[in-house]
C-alpha cells in the first residue's frame, strides 16, 4: 500500500532523513518510535508532501504510484492523512466548516457533487459521538484555545470524517488523559479495516496496548535502526534507546 524506498530528505541543506525503507501493507499497523529529533515528524511531513522539505533521493509510493510530483492536497485526496503533532489554529473557521470544506474538496477531486447537508450532518453526528465530542465543540474555531488533548481528539475526529487509506498519527497520544486515550484509540481501531493502514508515532508503550502494532520500527538519526514485533516496544520502554544508538554506530 505504502512503500518508502531509500528516502533522503533535507531542509536548508541539512539532511534529516538519511535513507529510510518501509513497506506498509493494507490492514497493518506500524509503530515508529525513536528519540527526540530523530526525524519522525519530518518523515510524516515528507509523506504528506510538505514542500519545505526537499527529497534528494528515494521514493514514496502509494498504491504503486510515485508521489514525487503529487501536491499535498492531491495526496490527501488519494487517502493520506496526517494527525499533526502540533495542530495549527485557524481563527474564525469552525471545525464544522473546516470539515465540510475538506470533504467537499475531496469529493470535487473525485468528480462528485458536494455532500448534501443532511448526509454531512449525519456523518458529523456519528463521528462526533464515536469520539465523544460535544457538539458545541464543533462550532468553535479550529484548534483556537483548544487544550492539548482536545486538539488531538479533534485530529482523530477529522480522520474519522475523511476515512483515509493511510493514516499517520504523530504523537496523537501525547496530551491525552487516560480516558481520552482509550476513547481516541477505540476510535482509531473502529476505523481500521483490511483495506487501510495506520502508522503511529509515539514515545510510549501505553498507546500500543490499545492500538496494537504489527511492526515496531526505531528511527534514529534519520534511519530505521531496528524493526521488530510489538514486543520491541516493551523492550524499548525498559532499556531506552542507548543500546540501539550504540548498535547503529557499530
Amino acid at each position, binding site marked *: 500500500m505504502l512503500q518508502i524506498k531509500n528516502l533522503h530528505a533535507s531542509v536548508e541543506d541539512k539532511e534529516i532523513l538519511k535513507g529510510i525503507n518501509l513497506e506498509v501493507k493494507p490492514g497493518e499497523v506500524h509503530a515508529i518510535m525513536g528519540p527526540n529529533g530523530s526525524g519522525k515528524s519530518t518523515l510524516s511531513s515528507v509523506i*504528506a508532501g510538505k514542500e*519545505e522539505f526537499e527529497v534528494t533521493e528515494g521514493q514514496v509510493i502509494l498504491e504503486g504510484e510515485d508521489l514525487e510530483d503529487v501536491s499535498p*492536497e492531491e495526496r490527501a485526496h488519494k487517502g493520506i492523512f496526517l494527525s499533526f503533532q502540533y495542530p495549527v489554529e*485557524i481563527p*474564525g473557521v469552525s471545525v*464544522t466548516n473546516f470539515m465540510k*470544506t475538506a470533504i467537499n474538496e*475531496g469529493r470535487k477531486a473525485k468528480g462528485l457533487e458536494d455532500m448534501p447537508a443532511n448526509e454531512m450532518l449525519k456523518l458529523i453526528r456519528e463521528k462526533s459521538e464515536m469520539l465523544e465530542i460535544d*457538539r458545541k465543540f464543533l462550532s468553535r*474555531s479550529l484548534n483556537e484555545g483548544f487544550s492539548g488533548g482536545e486538539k488531538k481528539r479533534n485530529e482523530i475526529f477529522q480522520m474519522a470524517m475523511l476515512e483515509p487509506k493511510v493514516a499517520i498519527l504523530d504523537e496523537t497520544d501525547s496530551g491525552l488523559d487516560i480516558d481520552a486515550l482509550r476513547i481516541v484509540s477505540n476510535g482509531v481501531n473502529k476505523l481500521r479495516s483490511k483495506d487501510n493502514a495506520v502508522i503511529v508515532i509515539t514515545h510510549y508503550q501505553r498507546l500500543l496496548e490499545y492500538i496494537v502494532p504489527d511492526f515496531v520500527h526505531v528511527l534514529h538519526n534519520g534511519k530505521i535502526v531496528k524493526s521488530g514485533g510489538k514486543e520491541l516496544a516493551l523492550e524499548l520502554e525498559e532499556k531506552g534507546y542507548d543500546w540501539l544508538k550504540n548498535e547503529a554506530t557499530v
Partner: protein
Amino acid sequence: MAYTEEELKKELETKEYEYGFYTDIESETFPVGLSEEIVIAISKKKEEPEWMTLWRLEAFKIWKEMEEPEWANVHYEKPDFQAISYYSAPKKADPNKTLDDVDPELLEMYKKLGISVDEQKKLQNVAVDIVMDSVSVATTFKKTLAEKGIIFCSISEAIKEHPELVKKYLGSVVPKTDNFYAALNSAVFSDGSFCYIPKGVRCPMELSTYFRINQAGTGQFERTLVIADEASYVSYLEGCTAPSRDENQLHAAVVELISLDDAEIKYSTVQNWFPGNKEGKGGVYNFVTKRALCEKNAKVSWTQVETGSAVTWKYPSCILKGDNSIGEFYSIAVTNNYQQADTGTKMIHLGKNTKSTIISKGISAGKSQNSYRGLVQVSSRAANARNFSQCDSLLMGNECGAHTFPYIEAKNKSAMIEHEATTSKIGEDQIFYCNQRGIDTEKAIALIVNGFSKEVLNKLPMEFAVEAQKLLEISLEGSVG
C-alpha cells in the same frame, strides 16, 4: 452559544456565485460633458418639479467653485468631468410594468448574479428595488410594504409623490457643500432609492437594492435617502457588481440615513465593482459619501464588505446627535493586485452617553494598498461617550501594504476611547494544514480569510453573508503563486 441543528445546517449550505459578464442593453445616453443646461435637462428628463431643478442648479454652482481634493493615500488619474455622460437609462424601462414585462436580457443578468428577480420575488422577506444604470426598472413587494405605511421607491418617484419628506431630509445629513463629490452628486444624481418607515413600524423584510454599472463612460450618481421615523426599525441591503470594463468608471454616490428618536437602521453593503485587471488597468473609481444622523436613543449600524473598485474612498459616518444614541461600523475591505482603498469611518459624538463601535478588517494581497482611516470625535457636551475600535489587518505576500490611521479628538474628559490593532500574515503552517486535509492553497486562503472576517460577516443578514463570503473568495483568486 447553543449550537442547534439548524445552525449547523445553515453552515453547511452553499450557493453558487458568478460574475464578470456584460449585458447588451440599449441605453439612452446624454452627450458627454457637464453644464447648467445638462443639469436642467436631467431634471426635465426626470419630470421633476421646479424646486428640485433649482436645488440641483444650486448644487452645480457650488460644485463649480470647488476643487477636486487630493485624497490622502490613493493615487489615480483624475477623471475628466467633461468626458462623462451624466444620464443614461435603459431604454425599455418603465416603472409601472410587471416583472413579466421586464427585458428578458436584464432578468438573465440578474440570474447570472444569483439574484434573479423572479426568484427574489418568491424569496420570503426580501423586497427588491433594482437600480440599473440610474433608473429603477422593477419594484416588488410594494404592496406588503404599503400596508404598513412604508414607502420604498426610487428617489425620482419620491420627489414627485412625497415632496414634503424629500424637501425636509434631502441634503440634511450630507449638505450640497459637504465635499466635491457630494456637490457633484447633488447636481446630477440620476436615481437611487428612497425609504421611509413610519413611527413605531418594524419593517417586516430586508429591503434591498442591487446597483450595477452597465454603460461605458457613464458616470454613476446614486442618491439614497432612508428615514426611520420615531421608534421604527429597518434593515437595508445594498449590493453592487459591475461587468469587466477596460475604462475607468466614476461612481460618486451619496447615502443619507436619518434615524429619529428610538429608531434603528441597519445598512449593509456588499460592493463588488470591477477593480481593474491584474495589471491595474480599468476599474471603477468609487468616491462615496455615506452619513447617518442619530437622534435620541437611536441606532445606526453600517456593515460593509468591499472587494471591488480600483480606487475606493469611503467613510460611512454616524453623527450621534441625540443622547444615548449608538453608532456601529463593521467593515471588511479587500484589496488585490493594484487596488487602492482608503476607507474607514467617522463617529461624531455630540449627545450624552453616546456609544460607538468600530470593527475594521483589512485584507491586502498582490501589490495593493489598504488604508483604514477612522475618526472618533467627542464634543465638549458629550459626557460619558464611549468608543471601541478594533482594526485588524491580514497581509498576503510581501508586496502589499496595510495602513491604519486612527484619529481621536476628545473634548470631554469623561470620554472612554479604546483602540486595538493587529496585523497578521497567513502562515505556511496554516496552509499546509489545510493542504493536508485536501484543501488547495487558494481555497485554504479563502477559508482563512473568511475566518478572519467572521466577526463582520456575522453582522450581515444570512442571505447576504453567503454572497459576501463567495465574493471574498473570488476577489482573492490568483493572489498566491
